[in-house]
C-alpha cells in the first residue's frame, strides 16, 4: 500500500531537483500568505463580489494586466535560467531535460499567457471607452474568456511542480510531442492548457468584433474610429480565422496521445508534417494578433504626445487590413526547408515580403505624425519612440528571413531567435508597456512614476540590444536554437556571454518596473482631471478611473479624434444641446459567479485528462454542461441604474 502511494507520488510530483523543491516551498508559502492576508483583512467577500464575479470590462482588463505582468515574470525567469546555462560552453547549471522544459514553457507562456492577455488587457481597458460604449457586446462571455485564460495559465504553470513540464518546444512538433517519443504528462498539460485558453481567445475575438461593429456611439463612423480600435478590428478578424486550425491541430494531437490514434505519428501512415502546417496556419497570423494592437497603441501614443493628428489615417487603416489578410498567406515561411518545392516556397517567400510593405508604410506614417508636431517624451512616448528603430531592424531581418534561399541558412539558427525576439519584444511587449503606461491613469487614477520608469526603460532597452544583437551574429556562426550546451572553440562563447549580460539587464529593467508600480500606488501622482496626457480620444473625456457605466450620456461624435474636437469646440465656446440633455436610466448586466465556476470546472476536467483520470474528467464535464444549462434558464441577468443613482455618482465626480 505504502509502496503504491510512493509510486504514485513520484510520478505525480516532480522529484529530485532542488530548484523545483525551492519552487514548491515558495508556491506553498505564497499561497498561504495570500490566504492569510485575505482572511486577516476579511477580504474574501470583497474579492468575490468585486473581482471574481465581475463582468465589467475595465476590471477584467485590470485582471488581464496583472496576469500579464505575473506571466512576464515567470517567462522572464525562464529566460534568465536559459541565458545563465548558455553563458559559457559546458555549463553544468541545467541538465538537458530541464533546459528543454524551460525553453518550452518560456515560449508557450510568453506567446499565449503573456502577449495574448497583454493585448486583451488593453482591448478591455480601452476599446469600449474609445467607441463610446457602456460595455462590450457580451459582458458575461467576456468574463468567461478571462477565467478560461486564467485557469489555462494555472494549468500550464502547475505542470512545473506536478507531473513535469512539457519539453517538446513551444511549437510542440509531432512526432516528438507524440506518445512514442514523449510519455510524460507534460505534453498533456500543454495541449489541454492551450485548448482551454483557445476557447477564451476565440470568444474574445468574436466579442470585440461585435462590440466595435454594433456599439459605437452615434456619429462614430468606421473612418472616425481611433486607430487603436481599428487595430483591434483587424486583430479580432485574424483571431476568428486563425484559432480554429490550432484547436483542431492540438485536438488531433491530444487524440494521438490519449486515444492512441495516428494522425501525427510516424507509424501507420501518420503525417507529422501536417501538424507543422496546421500549427503555423495559426502561428503566423498569431504574431499579427499580438503585434497589430501594439501598432494601434503606438498610433494613439505618437499622435497624443506629438499633439498632432495621425498622419495618413486612411493608409494606416488600409495597411492594418492588408496585414490581416496577407498574414494568412505566409505560414510556409516557417519551414521553407521542408521541401515543399520551389513553386510553393517562392509563393510564400514573396507573400512574406509583401507584408513588409504595409508595415513599412505605418512606420513612415508614425514618423510624419511626429514631424512638425510638439513631441513630449513621457513614458508611453519613450517606449513608442524606442519601438521604431527596433522594429525597423526586426522587420528588416524578417525580410531577410523571407528570402527562401537565405532562409535555408537562417532557419532554426540564432539569427531567427534574434529576429523574432526583436519584433515580439520590440513590437508587442513595447506596445503592451506603452499601453500600460498610457492607460494606467485611466485604470487606477494613478500616474506611474516617471523617474523610476526612465531607469526601467533604459535598463530594459539597452539590455535588449545587448542581449539580441549578438544572437544575429551567433546564427551566422552556425549556432542553432534549443541547444542546452555547445562546444568550445566555435567562437560562440564571447557572444553568448554578452547576450546573457543583456538578459540580466532586461531582468533588472523588469524589477524596476515592479518597483515603479508599487512606489506609484503608494506615493504616485493622482490623476484628478481624467485627461493627464491632453488626449485626443473619448476615453480621456471620462474621470479616472471611469465609472462602471462608462458614459452617463453617450456622446455624439462629429469627427475623428472626438475628445480633441470637443476640447477645441469648448475653447471656442461652442456648446452642444445634448450635453445638457436630461440623464436617462442605464441598463447594465448583472455580475455572475458562473464564469468563474465554469472555468474552474474546465480546469478540473483538463487536470483530470492530463493524468487520464477519466471518471473525474467525466464528472467535471457534467458540471460544465450543468453550468451551461443553468445559464440558459437564467432570466434575471441585468439591472437598471436609476437617474437618482446616476446623478448621485456623477455629482461625486463633479460632473453634473
Amino acid at each position, binding site marked *: 500500500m505504502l509502496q503504491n502511494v510512493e509510486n504514485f507520488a513520484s510520478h505525480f510530483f516532480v522529484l529530485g531537483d532542488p530548484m523545483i523543491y525551492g519552487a514548491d516551498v515558495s508556491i506553498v508559502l505564497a499561497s498561504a500568505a495570500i490566504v492569510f492576508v485575505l482572511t486577516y483583512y476579511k477580504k474574501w467577500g470583497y474579492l468575490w463580489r468585486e473581482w471574481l464575479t465581475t463582468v465589467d470590462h475595465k476590471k477584467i482588463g485590470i485582471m488581464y494586466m496583472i496576469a500579464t505582468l505575473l506571466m512576464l515574470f515567470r517567462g522572464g525567469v525562464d529566460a534568465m535560467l536559459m541565458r545563465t546555462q548558455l553563458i559559457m560552453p559546458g555549463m553544468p547549471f541545467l541538465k*538537458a531535460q530541464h533546459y*528543454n522544459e524551460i525553453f518550452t514553457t518560456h515560449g508557450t507562456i510568453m506567446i499565449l499567457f503573456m502577449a495574448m492577455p497583454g493585448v486583451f488587457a488593453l482591448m478591455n481597458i480601452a476599446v469600449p471607452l474609445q467607441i463610446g460604449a457602456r460595455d462590450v457586446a457580451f459582458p458575461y462571455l467576456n468574463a468567461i474568456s478571462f477565467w478560461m485564460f486564467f485557469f489555462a495559465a494555472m494549468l500550464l504553470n502547475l505542470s512545473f511542480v506536478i507531473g513535469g513540464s512539457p519539453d517538446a518546444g513551444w511549437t510542440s*512538433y509531432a*512526432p516528438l510531442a507524440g506518445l512514442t*517519443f514523449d510519455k510524460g504528462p507534460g505534453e498533456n498539460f500543454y495541449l489541454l492548457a492551450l485548448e482551454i485558453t483557445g476557447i477564451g481567445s476565440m470568444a474574445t475575438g468574436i466579442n470585440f468584433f461585435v462590440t466595435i461593429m454594433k456599439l459605437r456611439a452615434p456619429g462614430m463612423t468606421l473612418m472616425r474610429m481611433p486607430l487603436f480600435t481599428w487595430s483591434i478590428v483587424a486583430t479580432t478578424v485574424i483571431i476568428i480565422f486563425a484559432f480554429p486550425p490550432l484547436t483542431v491541430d492540438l485536438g488531433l494531437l491530444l487524440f494521438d496521445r490519449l486515444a492512441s490514434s495516428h494522425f501525427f505519428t*510516424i507509424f501507420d*501512415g501518420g*503525417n*507529422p508534417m501536417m501538424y507543422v502546417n496546421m500549427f503555423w496556419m495559426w502561428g503566423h497570423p498569431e504574431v499579427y494578433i499580438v503585434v497589430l494592437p501594439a501598432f494601434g497603441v503606438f498610433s494613439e501614443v505618437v499622435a497624443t504626445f506629438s*499633439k*498632432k*493628428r495621425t*498622419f*495618413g489615417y486612411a*493608409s494606416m487603416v488600409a495597411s492594418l487590413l492588408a496585414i490581416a489578410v496577407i498574414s494568412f498567406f505566409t505560414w510556409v515561411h516557417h*519551414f521553407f526547408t*521542408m*521541401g515543399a*518545392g*520551389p513553386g510553393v516556397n*517562392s509563393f510564400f517567400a*514573396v507573400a512574406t515580403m509583401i507584408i*513588409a*510593405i504595409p508595415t*513599412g*508604410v505605418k*512606420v*513612415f506614417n508614425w*514618423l510624419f*505624425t*511626429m*514631424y*512638425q*508636431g510638439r*513631441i*513630449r*517624451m513621457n513614458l508611453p512616448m519613450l517606449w513608442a*519612440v*524606442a519601438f521604431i*528603430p527596433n522594429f525597423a531592424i526586426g522587420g*528588416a531581418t524578417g*525580410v*531577410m528571413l*523571407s*528570402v*527562401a*534561399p537565405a532562409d*535555408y*541558412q537562417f532557419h*532554426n*539558427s540564432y539569427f531567427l531567435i534574434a529576429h523574432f525576439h526583436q519584433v515580439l519584444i520590440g513590437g508587442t511587449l513595447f506596445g503592451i508597456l506603452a499601453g500600460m503606461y498610457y492607460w494606467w491613469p485611466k485604470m487606477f487614477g494613478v500616474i506611474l512614476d516617471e523617474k523610476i520608469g*526612465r531607469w526601467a526603460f533604459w535598463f530594459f*532597452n*539597452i539590455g535588449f540590444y545587448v542581449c539580441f544583437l549578438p544572437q544575429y551574429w551567433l546564427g*551566422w*556562426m*552556425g549556432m*542553432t536554437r534549443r541547444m542546452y550546451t555547445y562546444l568550445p572553440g*566555435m*567562437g560562440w562563447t564571447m557572444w553568448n556571454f554578452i547576450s546573457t549580460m543583456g538578459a540580466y539587464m532586461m531582468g533588472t529593467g523588469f524589477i524596476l518596473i515592479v518597483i515603479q508600480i508599487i512606489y506609484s500606488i503608494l506615493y504616485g501622482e493622482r490623476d484628478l482631471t481624467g485627461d493627464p496626457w491632453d488626449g485626443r480620444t473619448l476615453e480621456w473625456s471620462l474621470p479616472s478611473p471611469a465609472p462602471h457605466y462608462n458614459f452617463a450620456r453617450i456622446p455624439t461624435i462629429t469627427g475623428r479624434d472626438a475628445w480633441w474636437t470637443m476640447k477645441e469646440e469648448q475653447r471656442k465656446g461652442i456648446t452642444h444641446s445634448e450635453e445638457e440633455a436630461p440623464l436617462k436610466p442605464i441598463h447594465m448586466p448583472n455580475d455572475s459567479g458562473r464564469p468563474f465556476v465554469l472555468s474552474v470546472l474546465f480546469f478540473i476536467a483538463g487536470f483530470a485528462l492530463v493524468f487520464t483520470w477519466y471518471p473525474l474528467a467525466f464528472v467535471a464535464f457534467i458540471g460544465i454542461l450543468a453550468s451551461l444549462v443553468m445559464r440558459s434558464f437564467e432570466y434575471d441577468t441585468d439591472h437598471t441604474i436609476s437617474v437618482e443613482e446616476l446623478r448621485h455618482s456623477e455629482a461625486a465626480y463633479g460632473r453634473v
Partner: protein
Amino acid sequence: MKHTRMSTYAWIAALSGTTLLLPGCGEQVLVFNPVGPVGMIEKQMIILSIIMISIVVIPVIVLLAMIITRYRDKPNNTSPYRPEWSENRTLEIIWWAVPIAIVGVLGTFTVQRTFALVRPPGNTDNPLTIQVTSMDWKWLFQYPDQKIATVNYCEIPSNRPIQFVLTSNAPMNSFWVPQLGGQEYTMPGMAMKLWLEANRPGVYYGSGANFSGEGFAHMHFNVVARPQGEFDQWVQNVKASAPPLTDRQYATLAQRTIVQPMTFSTNQPGLFEKIVYQDGGMYMRRDLMKGKIHTHSGTD
C-alpha cells in the same frame, strides 16, 4: 531628452559598425565563409537582402533622430508646428512605392534562386549520393555506391556535387552544414534531396538544426572534404579495416544514445528505403514503387 538622442546615435554607430564588420568576417562566421556553389549563392542572397533593406532602415533611423531632436515640446522651439497637417499624397505614394519596388527586386531574385537551388550546382556528370538518416541522437551516413557507412561524420570528395538524400527514423531534424550551404529537414517517411558541394578540401562543421529531444545538442558532425584520390583511398581503407554494419548494429544505433563517430565497411542495401518505408512513408510509397525516388544513384 538628451538620452533619446544619444540612443539614436548609438544605434547608427552600432549599425554602421555591423556593416563595416561584414566584409572582414572571421573564419568562424560560417555562413559568410562558404566553400561551395550553394553556400555562395545563399551568401549573395543574404548580402543582396541586407543592401535592399538598408534602403528603408537607414532613412527611418536617421529621420527619427532628426524629427525627435527638432520637434520637441519646448517653449523656445521655433520649428514649425502644424497640428492639423495629416495628409500628403506625394509623400504617401513615395513610401508605398519604394517598398513595393524593393520587394519587386528582391522577390525576383528570390524566386529565381529558389528554383536554381533545387537543381544540382555546377558540373553534374558524376554526382555522389550519400543517404543521411537522423536518429536519436546521431547521424547515419550511408554510401550506396561505395557500400560503406559512417556515423556522426561524413567524408566527401571535393569539387564534386553531392546529392544528400535525407530521412529520419526518429523525430524530424534538419541537416545543416553552413559552409556548404543551407539546411533541409530530415523527416520520417520522406526521402528529401539536398545538393551540396565543397570547392576546397577541409573539415566543415555540421549539425542537426531542428530540436529532437534530450540528446539534440550533441548531434553535431564533421564533413571532411578531400580530393577525389584521397577520398577513394579512404573508402578502400574503410572497406579493409572497419567492421560491417549488421542488423544488430543498426538496432543498437536506433536506441536513444549519444555515440562517438563510427565507421562501417558495409552499408545495408535497402536499409535506407526500409527506413523511409516503414516509418510511415505512406505518401512516398507510390513514388518509391514507380522508381521516381532514386535514393541510391544518379540525378533527377
